[in-house]
């Protein structure tokens, strides 16, 4: 009887702990992810804090792919906002490591492939002349993968539009094609329903901003 009570107590305790943990996770992620909706989160120092927070959550949870995903997202964004090209490879390595972990938890994920494409673009920036071929191709391949995993993911069209806009015309870039692509992206954003409020949903304001540049 004693034993039974004890085990019942333990099961109850575990269940409570599990509920508590997932509530804590949801709550922490809600706050961190909603912060990313504001551009203030993308100041270089703020990004460092965000990377650290997501990595803390990732390490404490280990079974959730989203903290790894967001840590990598913030790391790759740091590559783009930072001034020091010498740091890009290190950040990209860390982002790639986080994406590998995310990938293991959520294989064939369109969102993860999108970030992988951004990581390749960041690496390309370090030395476009000698890295252009390799990483340009990889960035393109990851976008294609992202599209096959989920054709409705608006970020695929955002990244494709961005690449069309910033690629020189000699290499297949085109303002008018970029415009069409970004318009598609906005349609997809309008139709897109994130699985939860902590699921990836970034990029719509940026797509609008790019669209004005493509006019």
């Amino acid at each position, binding site marked *: 009887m004693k034993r039974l009570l004890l085990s019942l107590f333990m099961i109850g305790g575990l269940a409570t702990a599990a509920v508590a943990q997932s509530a804590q996770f949801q709550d922490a992620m809600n706050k961190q992810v909603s912060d990313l909706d504001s551009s203030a989160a993308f100041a270089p120092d703020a990004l460092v804090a965000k990377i*650290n*927070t997501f990595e803390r959550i990732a390490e404490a949870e280990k079974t959730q792919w989203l903290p790894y995903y967001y840590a990598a997202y913030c790391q790759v964004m740091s590559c783009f906002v930072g001034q020091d090209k010498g740091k890009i490879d290190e950040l990209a390595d*860390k982002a790639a490591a986080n994406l590998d972990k995310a990938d293991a938890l959520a294989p*064939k994920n369109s969102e993860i492939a999108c970030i992988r494409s951004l990581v390749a673009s960041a690496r390309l920036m370090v030395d476009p002349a000698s*890295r252009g071929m390799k990483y340009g191709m990889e960035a393109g391949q990851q976008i294609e993968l992202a599209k096959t995993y989920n054709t409705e993911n608006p970020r695929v069209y955002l990244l494709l539009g961005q690449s069309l806009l910033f690629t020189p015309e000699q290499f297949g870039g085109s303002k008018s094609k970029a415009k069409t692509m970004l318009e598609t992206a906005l349609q997809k954003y309008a139709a897109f329903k994130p699985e939860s409020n902590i699921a990836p949903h970034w990029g719509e304001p940026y797509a609008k901003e790019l669209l004005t540049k493509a006019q």
Partner: protein
Amino acid sequence: MFRINLYLFFLFSPMVLLAQHKISGKVTDNKKHPLPGVNVYIKGSYDGATSKADGSFAFTTAEVGERILTASLSGYQPLEIKINTASAEQLTVILKNAVSALRVVTISAGSFEASDDKKGTVLKPLDIVTTAGAGADIVNAIKTLPGAQQTNDREGLFVRGGTGYETQTLIDGMLVRNPFSSSLPDVPGRGRFSPFLFKGTTFSSGGYSAQYGQALSSALVLESTDLPQRSSSSIGVSVIGASAGVENLSNDKKTSWGVEGDYTNLAPYFQVVKPKQTPNLGPEIIGTSLNFRRKTSSTGMLKFYGYGNWSKMGFSSPSIEYPGNTESYQVRNGNLYTNMTYRENLGDDWRLYVGASFSANRDNITTDTLGKDQIPADIRVRSSLAQSRVMLTRHLGPFSALRFGGEYQYAVEQFSYNRRPFNYADNYTAAFTEADIYFTPSFVGRVGGRAEYSSVLAKMNLAPRVSLAYKVDNYSQFSVAYGDYYQKPEPQYIRFDHGLGYMKATHYIASYQRVATDYTFRTEIFYKQYADLVKTVPGYNNNGKGYAKGIELFWRDRKTIKNVDYWISYSYLDTKRDYLNYPKEVQPDFAATHTASLVYKHFIPKLSTNIGLTYTFATGRPYYNPNLPADKFMSDKTIDYHAVGVSASYLTTIRKAFTIFVLSVSNAPGNKQVFGYRYSSDGLRRGEITPSVPRFIFLGMFMNFGIDRRQDVINNL
């Protein structure tokens, strides 16, 4: 963080008694400088903070009792300390520098590396292709680096007072017996191998590893590319020929094969631009290559490369010996090179490398003085080389390593003059061992040695090699190197006298380099002592000797001017030698005292065009004037050498093909270049040795088509 905890407090207060503890403190490095951006947190919880600019951090936690506090920042060793969350003390966290690969010193004395893999290398493989005036030739591009001479009247890399024979070329560790195409007297042959084949090139101008032997001066170590990124095909068309290639990557991305072919015919070009000599055969070259690569495991790689090339060319020119007559020189060459290597990890600490290679070369040369009733000279040179190599690497700790291995080469050297043969074969065996010992991550010593035996010389040698490198900070390092180097005399001497011994050089090098992301500075001083060089008078003997000493500077800057990348190199060389038929020790005819290069590359994004300019300068070289008395031997010097190469390449896409248009002009201003003089045997007449065309204009187009395998990728998911 506070908000979350408050929320939790309300949610779970009936069940859990939450006590909020404040954790605060400061993070510094071991020199007490504050560290910002550090992730400080209670291990296994969400609770933590990022340190501010002054290194301070503060957060609250509900964790109770003894917990582990972790502090991590990239570039530093993560730190874990036990704390009691209840004790409200100010924590002092000190992080130590992590030993990342970037900070670890590497042996650098004497070597220039061009690689994509390693950060902070001096040159990238693409730099070789985009150097104006180099004509996409590896050796021509290397000649813009300090230590190399501008000897553009003969092939080979003449390094630090050494001859071209003293430089060896290796592909994936295997010796290349004939790295240059056969050519005509006073016209240098081009390198046989395309720069696109290699992911890494190391040009060592001295003090190199015990892994390599049979080179008195220099080693050019080429590392072939791994699997391609994707399947592709390419074509190239230029004013002198055409090429095409296919490269196929398997669906599982573990195997690839490639085939290439090229055809060059200079005859039409020489119809338009008349060379100094009159072409009477070709020049015509047919080349082909084949490669196969397989990733046998996550750490194993098998590579095969095969190359075949056939050329014929001949010129006639006015005879200096017999005024009014014409000298004809024709050469027909066939060359085959194959190379197979395999690398794999054996357990955690061991790495295996095995390689095998076979190569063969045939030159049929006919020289004739037309109009004279002489028998034309018929010279046939055939050489073949089979070689194998094994090397084992044992990793000792995180950085140190021990390498050892052996080499075996079987060479057959055949030569006939008007059917009179002078042949020999040589069995060459070598064993080497070498240890990289890291005393600290910033201080490394490399100690090694090499033992060799050649059957035709019937002699053995032992060559010790030592180098040290010390890294002062993240960017700067000092290195020193010492070593003995032995080399067999050239086949043309061994075939007439099997009693010759090894030639020997001893290198002493000290260097300083500073390599940052956007600039590189290097300087090196060296002293090289030659002993046992071959002399041809009175009989063949090993009594030659000499020395070379000098200072070299290199500066490369990618930052100061936007979209511009330039490098400057300067070499001062003081060398004298007594060898071959020299009556005394003098500055040899291939050595210039001062050599300098400026390589300038400007990318114009708007036009998607790369403009390149290369200026090279060398002071005049000594030449032999038979009219001078013996004590003035080699005292005359040619005029200074100036060359300006310009190139423009336009990058674009035509349909789906990545396309480059290249226009390059060597010696654009048409400066007069004289490399020396040839005298008639009575010394009364002489002819200048000059480039066969003063200015070479190259126009070409190269297209690369990616074979679209997108559908395959999808099918394999």
